[in-house]
């Protein structure tokens, strides 16, 4: 039976808690309620309140407590009810968690889970993609899975990682995406992008929910004769530049796609990495498809105009292909 993206994360967490008694979860409503999105549904019944901690509404307190427990040898997995609230625990993440190892050699093996992304009419405070706040913060790892397989494999790797991992789960994928997962246990390495679709004419680099948009666009353009390669970053920090560069070396054209707003999105970091390393391989402008620079609007007409979609990707990709 195919497993949803949400269920994949739940399974991954569950398996890690079975495997390692030091793993525990904390957050608002993660216990009796099983989490706002039900990712930890049934956990408190199985693992008990000691390992499934319902906290007060205190994002900074939650992240701080995770850090303290992590320093003492536990492996806390903290849930932000929505990624949008991660800004309330910001200092603990970017100044405490991110810098301990560098400053005084103290590992902070925590995971902060954050349901992010739009397309669910959540409006300005339930739809954001805050990944770039963390991508610019050395010492953190930032993971954004797009598939159920990766979501499970990456949450397991995140739990085992000895550095702080911010784990963005795209809300729009939770129940939309499913696939058959391997029976046995597996992990997906943090820091490795993946060529999801091979092609010759141009590369689309993306991550998260936009992977599916890229694949749809590639399918459509294939009918017109374009051979499009799609790279899923999977991890944004550390950024797997090698895989991106190898693909662009091959295709010589690249379209950068993200749901995050335009200015300061990962497209910039990718573009500069490409131009500084393999400029001579480029046969065309680097183009990007992104959300525009506004808060995420609420009303369907506005949100639809705001989000990148297959049509917008096709238009730009076709232009680039013909360039």
């Amino acid at each position, binding site marked *: 039976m195919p497993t949803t993206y949400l269920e994949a994360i739940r399974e991954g967490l569950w398996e890690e808690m079975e495997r390692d008694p030091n793993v525990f979860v904390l957050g608002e409503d993660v*216990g009796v309620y099983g989490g706002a999105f039900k990712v930890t549904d049934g956990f408190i019944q199985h693992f008990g309140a000691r390992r499934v901690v319902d906290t007060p509404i205190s994002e900074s307190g939650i992240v701080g407590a995770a850090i303290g427990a992590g320093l003492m040898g536990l492996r806390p997995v903290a849930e932000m009810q929505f990624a949008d609230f991660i800004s309330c625990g910001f200092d603990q993440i970017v100044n405490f968690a991110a810098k301990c190892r560098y400053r005084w050699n103290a590992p902070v093996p925590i995971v902060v889970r954050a349901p992010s992304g739009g397309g669910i009419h959540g409006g300005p405070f339930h739809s954001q993609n805050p990944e770039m706040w963390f991508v610019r913060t050395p010492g953190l790892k930032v993971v954004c899975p797009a598939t159920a397989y990766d979501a499970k494999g990456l949450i397991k790797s995140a739990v085992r990682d000895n550095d702080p991992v911010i784990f963005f789960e795209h809300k729009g994928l939770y129940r939309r995406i499913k696939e058959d997962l391997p029976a046995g246990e597996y992990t997906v390495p943090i820091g490795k992008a993946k060529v999801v679709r091979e092609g010759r004419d141009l590369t689309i680099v993306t991550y998260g929910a936009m992977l599916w948009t890229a694949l749809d666009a590639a399918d459509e353009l294939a009918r017109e004769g374009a051979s499009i390669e799609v790279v899923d970053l999977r991890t944004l920090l550390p950024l797997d530049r090698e895989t991106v560069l190898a693909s662009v070396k091959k295709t010589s054209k690249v379209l950068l796609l993200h749901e995050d707003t335009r200015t300061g999105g990962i497209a910039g970091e990718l573009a500069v990495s490409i131009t500084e390393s393999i400029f001579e391989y480029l046969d065309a402008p680097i183009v990007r498809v992104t959300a525009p620079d506004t*808060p995420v609007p609420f*009303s369907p007409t506005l949100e639809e105009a705001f989000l990148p979609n297959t049509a917008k990707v096709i238009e730009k990709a076709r232009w680039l292909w013909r360039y």
Partner: protein
Amino acid sequence: MSALLTAGPVRQTRENDQKLAALAARCHYYMALMREAEDRIERKLYRQGKVVGGVYVGRGQEAIPVGSALHALPDDVLFPSHRDMAVLFIRGVPLGRVFAQYMGRVDGLTRGRDGNMHMGDIHLRVVSIISALAATVPVAAGAALALKYQGKDGVAFCYFGDGATSRGDWHEGVNLATVQKLPVVFICNNNQYAYSTPLELQMACANVADRGPAYNMPAEIVDGNDPLAVYDATGRGVAHARAGLGPYLVECKTFRMTGHSAHDAAHYVPPELFEQWEKRDPIQLLEARMLENGWAGREALDATHARIRQEVDEAVAWAEQSPYPDPATLLDDVYEQP
């Protein structure tokens, strides 16, 4: 019609039966209006798929926004939270705009850019919450600072739930307001739950009011299901704040008679609690009292309900005529247009 535009608030009316009757009638109207509007949203428009996004209602808590906000004068500034819809009505926000807001239409207070209770009108001095709970607490302190700075004797009314008090912003805002003796009345709806989290997992103290002394701030506990009690307590708070004595906390004990939101069946709440509090429905209690004291007859109350239903019908119809925002406006107003 808004209290602001009519007689102005009525104070210390216990002695004066006529005034009390008039106050009860205003409370009754706004409470019933909030109930009807939210019922329409949650039980009709939401189920019809006409509401965009989530729905959080204040069923059973109507006495709190109503009993408190009736004290607001034009210079005052109000910071309702997500279960305080009546504050908007008392402040003069047209009903139709609220429905349009929930339906993502261009005539909503945020023109479709935000949803549900995330709305305000700066001209009416109602400030929109953001999602982050308690974020309005320091903002209310700053607004109160501005009122003082401007030499006005206005007061900021700052609303929040029990759960919001756990946030750092709550502490920073209350502390700043008390240190600077700013005119804020803090109004807590203690409905004993924050989403699924019961009070005992939210705070180790028995009452939110127990936090007053930590800031040397007077704090009182009041029956949050009795609008006249809320009115009295808020009156004391407002007088304290207007007198330049600094902030005041009113903790209103109540119960959330719904799930956290329309998609939450609240299985985690012991059913007895709902049954118990059902008997303390603030609108029914108020009606009983009005009848008992001869402040109103059954027909008058029924007429109010009928009038409200009609107002709501009209407002919903008006809101449904409102278009969705034009996607061409997507990029407008991120910054001031030159």
